[in-house]
């Protein structure tokens, strides 16, 4: 059943698909970051694929690889029961700024907090997100701690004991 969903997704997405693979029932489609929102809208609204539920969204930092970042969306169809994993690979811009991709929070409301988490921990910007603030770390925090180039033991304390308190 899910192979059919993958085949159908490939068909309706057309040139937006970079690659696909399927391993033991886990179907993955890698799409281009350009027009990402439109690709996701097609997957949601197509009557056969009908991926009406976003079960999870996360990001990966493949440090040292080109393209460096990857966003991963796990979709589920309540209509057919099929699952589909959608990935999109993002280059780190030359000037060291944050990579940008379309937000899908207009399609699935649950993407809102997940994308805030990806922004907080990986520094991926989501274009069109209604409220892109940090969600786990505090506002004073500098940097994105799950990036592989963030020093493992670097701490950014908000408070320490006064030095005269002995």
């Amino acid at each position, binding site marked *: 059943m899910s192979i059919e969903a993958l085949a159908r997704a490939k068909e309706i997405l057309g040139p937006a698909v970079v690659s696909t693979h399927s391993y033991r029932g886990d179907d993955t489609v890698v799409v281009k970051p350009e027009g990402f929102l439109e690709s996701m809208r097609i997957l949601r609204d197509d009557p056969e694929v009908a991926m009406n539920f976003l079960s999870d969204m996360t990001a990966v930092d493949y440090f040292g690889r080109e393209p460096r970042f990857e966003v991963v969306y796990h979709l589920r169809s309540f209509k057919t029961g099929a699952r589909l994993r959608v990935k999109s690979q993002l280059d780190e811009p030359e000037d060291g700024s944050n990579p940008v991709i379309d937000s899908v929070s207009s399609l699935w409301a649950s993407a809102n907090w997940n994308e805030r988490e990806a922004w907080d921990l990986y520094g991926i910007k989501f274009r069109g997100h209604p409220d892109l603030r940090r969600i786990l770390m505090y506002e004073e925090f500098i940097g994105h701690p799950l990036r592989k180039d963030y020093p493992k033991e670097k701490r*950014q*304390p908000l*408070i320490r004991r006064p030095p005269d308190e002995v």
Partner: protein
Amino acid sequence: MGLEFYTSRLADAVNWARKYSLFQYPFVTACCGMEFMSVWAPKYDVARFGAEFPRFSPRQADLLMIVGTITERQGPVLRRIYEQMCEPKWTVAFGVCASTGGFYQNYSTMPGADQCIPIDVYIPGCPPRPEQVLDGLIMLQDKIQEKRGFVQLREKREHDAVLQATGKLKVIP
């Protein structure tokens, strides 16, 4: 001379009363809380040591139990709760996370609650056995009786400084 002897005996009696009526404020943030409940429940029964009464307001508590991991983000909250408590007050770090950060060695975890507030007794363990907690509590009671708590020592230092300034206490070099 007689009056001084009387006040020191009075302090002993007051500290005896304090150590057997510790009103605690449990600052429970993580899994150590399960073990804390076990210490509290009838099987181990912390009530035998007079410390069974949790006050869910720091203003009415004299023992702050830090039970679980403290993150950097929680630091200001913990400090504020500590400062809200009336003196004399004591603190216990319950478990390795509260004592040293435990196995967390990362961007978000504070390496020990003593980075932001003073701690009187550290109870190691992940989580500590209830017996260990009771042992730690008895150690704290000894500290209170012997006036070795953080706040008690500070009070003594301040008192001595006043006495020295007024010439009532001579420091022998």
